[in-house]
């Protein structure tokens, strides 16, 4: 029983991180019908921004509450700018071209980032993973029984940040004028422009938002994993993409549910079977969902070619 509870907590903790990344895939897909394969790598760049900031702050400053806030702020804002630049110079010129063109461009950016960051010149970090500095010193937040269940402070913080960001996003999309514009653009950006909506700006802001969320999620992941590497984006990105597809890509609450389910499934596989099975089960689960519901748990099936 205690073991079950422990797995539940761990699964939710990693599920919420996946959720934040999955929301980025789903939002960009929502407004552009583009699967932004570079999303995970944009996240990785954000994590390195946070990494550099944490080092610049030094051992004392970065472990303070203010220090943590600064690390997150720099990474999220920097990553928003990075996402903006990618949209502006890589995707926007291809807006009216066949969708495949943008998709291949996204894959190209993904590889350029994940392999470019493995170079060891200039500010680039090189191929080997690095230890992520302790910006949140791990302490046990809650212990049940004789260490039957241990909840760590970083799990609680991570959960709070992730849930806070999700609630904020839900409010933005369904409760604000900008969110209404986003949903209009997502249906048909040409008609949205007829309402006076500056569609280019809405799309740019969506990219900035999804990149910022990714950077936040990437930092949480790096804190959990205590490491950062140029290939982390491919790995986390792929998992989050799977989560978004399980939920039904383009569907905001679907991405969250898909990610939580994926996080729990992975955790239970590791806990009760073997960790080597984790990825196989994750993808097997994806296949299963798509066999039963081709549009994902919440998505509707539209006959559409990418």
């Amino acid at each position, binding site marked *: 029983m205690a073991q079950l509870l422990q797995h539940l907590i761990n699964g939710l903790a990693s599920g919420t991180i996946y959720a934040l990344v999955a929301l980025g895939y789903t939002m960009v897909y929502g407004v552009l019908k583009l699967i932004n394969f570079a999303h995970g790598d944009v996240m990785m760049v954000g994590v390195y921004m946070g990494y550099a900031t944490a080092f610049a702050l030094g051992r004392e400053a970065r472990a303070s509450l203010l220090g943590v806030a600064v690390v997150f702020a720099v990474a999220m804002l920097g990553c928003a700018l990075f996402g903006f630049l990618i949209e502006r110079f890589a995707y926007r010129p291809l807006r009216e071209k066949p969708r495949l063109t943008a998709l291949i461009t996204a894959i190209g950016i993904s590889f350029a980032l994940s392999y470019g960051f493995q170079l060891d010149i200039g500010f680039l970090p090189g191929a080997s993973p690095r230890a992520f500095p302790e910006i949140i010193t791990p302490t046990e937040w809650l212990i049940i029984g004789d260490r039957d269940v241990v909840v760590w402070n970083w799990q609680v913080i991570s959960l709070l940040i992730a849930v806070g960001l999700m609630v904020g996003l839900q409010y933005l999309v369904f409760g604000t004028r900008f969110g209404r514009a986003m949903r209009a653009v997502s249906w048909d950006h040409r*008609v949205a422009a*007829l*309402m006076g909506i500056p569609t280019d700006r809405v799309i740019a802001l969506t990219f900035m938002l999804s990149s910022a969320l990714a950077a936040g999620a990437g930092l949480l992941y790096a804190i959990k994993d205590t490491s950062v590497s140029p290939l982390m984006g491919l790995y986390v990105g792929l998992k989050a993409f799977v989560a978004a597809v399980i939920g039904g890509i383009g569907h905001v609450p679907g991405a969250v549910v898909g990610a939580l389910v994926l996080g729990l499934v992975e955790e239970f596989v590791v806990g009760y079977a073997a960790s080597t099975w984790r990825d196989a089960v994750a993808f097997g689960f994806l296949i299963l969902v798509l066999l039963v519901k081709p549009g994902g748990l919440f998505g509707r099936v539209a006959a559409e070619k990418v």
Partner: protein
Amino acid sequence: MSEAQVKTLGERRAFEPLLTVDGIKVHYGAIQALRGVSLTVGKGEMVALIGANGAGKTSTLRAVSGMLKASAGRITFSGQDTTALKAHQLVPRGMAHAPEGRGIFPNLSVLENLELGAYLRKDTAQVRADLEKNFGLFPVLKERRSQMAGTLSGGEQQMLAIARALLSRPQLLLLDEPSLGLAPQVTETIFRTLREVNATGVSVLLVEQNAHLALNAAHYGYVLETGEVVMAGAGKALLESAEVRRAYLGE
């Protein structure tokens, strides 16, 4: 085609131009949809644009509202050269376009659709009042305001498209085939409302396949054929012309 080759029938009452389209051409890749279209809409006028399938009616409206870029020619709206402006820049200048196929957002509620029509407006109190006014024009929209727009019937969707366009407080309303696929009574309701709206001073450029309906409602009309204006004239005069009757009224 030069102006001289456009056959003109009847008298046009004096008007102050609001929209002037001068020799615009539109291409879709290698296909040329408009070969130099010229027309004008006066302040307070209702102007009909009729023509067969593929004549270029929709392309004309799209070029006017900035959805498409004209490859040649000039568009002047409200005294300003708007040829190079994009769709979202024309809305604050007083243009509203209810596009072909109605273009409602089925994933949003009826009320949210209407609010998007007023997207750029900051005068919240006045928007509320306009919303009520439009509910007066189309009471069924008020009943269904919290329903997803995708669940509305075709006629209700068309009403929503018109009401939404009106909520931007346009000087000029561009309408693309409002009668398409609707029962005669519904069409009649919509056209009655259009005349009411026009009577309040909103100019209308109306695209219709139903030439009889359009020319009856409009002060002036243009006949488009394979991307060119071939005939123009007062609504009634066009209705009475043998050529129009033969080609567009099936006589």
